[in-house]
């Protein structure tokens, strides 16, 4: 069964450092997303991406965040200067359709970011 893969599974970084989280979406999917989940809290939408540009972003996704699809397979989330409150599990997701009605948003297993 196709799956979304994410690396690293866990990253520990110092406050102020740059972090890049990587995702390989399902190969025939065209819509890509990042969500995050602070420990014990609900999953929150960060950004959606289609056709090499951001479709929508939440207020969490400020200037410290950026996304990129550097090649035909990877989708990355960069946090330029990490803060303590960026510590969370970051989930990448992809879908075949962006209509929102398929329900089939496939999530990766997440990258846990710990900022010290």
């Amino acid at each position, binding site marked *: 069964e196709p799956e979304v893969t994410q690396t690293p599974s866990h990253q520990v970084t110092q406050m102020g450092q740059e972090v890049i989280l990587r995702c390989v979406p399902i190969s025939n999917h065209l819509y890509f*997303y990042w969500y995050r989940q602070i420990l014990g809290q609900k999953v*929150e*939408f960060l950004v959606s991406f289609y056709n090499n540009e951001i479709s929508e972003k939440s207020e969490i996704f400020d200037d410290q965040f950026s996304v990129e699809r550097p090649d035909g397979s990877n989708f990355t989330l960069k946090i330029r200067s990490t803060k303590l409150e960026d510590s969370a599990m970051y989930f990448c*997701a992809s879908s075949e359709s962006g209509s929102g009605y398929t*329900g089939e*948003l496939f*999530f990766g*297993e997440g990258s846990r970011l710990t900022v010290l």
Partner: protein
Amino acid sequence: GESVGLHLPTLSVQEGDNSIINCAYSNSASDYFIWYKQESGKGPQFIIDIRSNMDKRQGQRVTVLLNKTVKHLSLQIAATQPGDSAVYFCAENLQGGKLIFGQGTELSVKP
């Protein structure tokens, strides 16, 4: 505004019993909802969805009920098994794949 919430943070059931997990939403214009299951250390996994033109939808051992009058939906799991232990989230699916998740209910199944 956008808001999706769950009534109970935890639910403990006996193996073989039926489980009911509830969810309330605030946006009366919401028209599409999804239930996700999240096992420990994993990402959310799609269980079942329902559109607002339906009141009920059934899957394998799961049923979702939607009451638009009181803006409430529920997930029913029949014959709950230990493998059903997880956190369950309802989510409102907005256009473009943006999901607004509720807080989650942790389901524990006692053998």
